[in-house]
């Protein structure tokens, strides 16, 4: 099973570390795939990945094989059902865990666990990626797998969630 990871634009230099850290490749936003943010004034509706806090907007933009990356980890039934019906992929960013501390981090871990469990039970495709914004938030394959196991509570589900990042090799139709 090949592992891929998704990084933000600020982590371009991390690409050199992909094989040493145990990954087949890193996908960098803006370089390997197009990304659009719902919080910006105009959202590119043809982008391969949509990132944002506004869950209603994310749900509206869900499309086959498109990555939906929510920065707001609340459970939104409409978003999950849209992701499932459209064939999109809900991608949980681990950077929200690694970049916070103390009670905030503990709360985010709990929210991510609940969101993953709900989405998985509902039948939606869920991927997990580090979405690192700098080298400081990069993880090796083992670290990513351990963090994913924290979220999914099952090694098999964790491996599948990380391997699903390979869907970025295909483009949404």
């Amino acid at each position, binding site marked *: 099973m090949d592992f891929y990871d998704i990084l933000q634009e600020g982590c371009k230099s991390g690409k*050199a*570390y992909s094989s*040493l*850290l*145990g990954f087949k490749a890193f996908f960098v936003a803006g370089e390997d795939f197009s990304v659009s943010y719902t919080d910006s004034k105009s959202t590119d509706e043809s982008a391969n990945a949509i990132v944002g806090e506004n869950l209603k907007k994310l749900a509206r933009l869900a499309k086959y094989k498109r990555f939906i990356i929510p920065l707001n980890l609340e459970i939104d039934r409409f978003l999950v059902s849209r992701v499932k019906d459209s064939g999109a992929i809900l991608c949980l960013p*681990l950077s929200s*865990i*690694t*970049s916070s*501390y103390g009670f905030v*981090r503990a709360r985010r871990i709990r929210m991510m666990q609940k969101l993953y469990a709900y989405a998985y039970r509902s039948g939606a495709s869920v991927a997990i990626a580090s979405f690192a914004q700098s*080298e*400081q*938030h*990069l*993880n*090796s394959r*083992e*670290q*990513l*797998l*351990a*963090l994913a*196991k*924290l979220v999914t509570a099952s090694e098999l589900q964790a491996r599948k969630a990380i391997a699903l990042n390979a869907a970025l090799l295909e483009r949404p139709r």
Partner: protein
Amino acid sequence: MKEKHRYILVSAWRDIREAERSSFEKGFYSSMLGVLGELGYSSAHPKIVKFLDGRRFVLKCTLEGKDSVLSALAMTKMVGGESAFFYTFKSSGTLLALGKYYDSAHSELSSVFDGKDAASGAR
């Protein structure tokens, strides 16, 4: 029955000179305690075994605590008041296997992470 352990090859964010290794270890254990908590720390029992060079060191932990230690290393971003991060390359049940991996990957690790000539890397 004998408790099972795992050895993890870890790379720090910068060279740790010999003179500052004891203060680094104190800060490192303190950060791990903060992330793992007292119960998690006692169950995982992470311990730095040895430094292979300025940045790479071997961390020993219990088998049951291995995932917690890996997660904690990913989440630790501050050591001794300094911004920090760690990468893990390999985990193994024996030091010998880690040593072999380090010997085979040393030049690549140095050239990618340290930007130094592999021949000048010290063990």
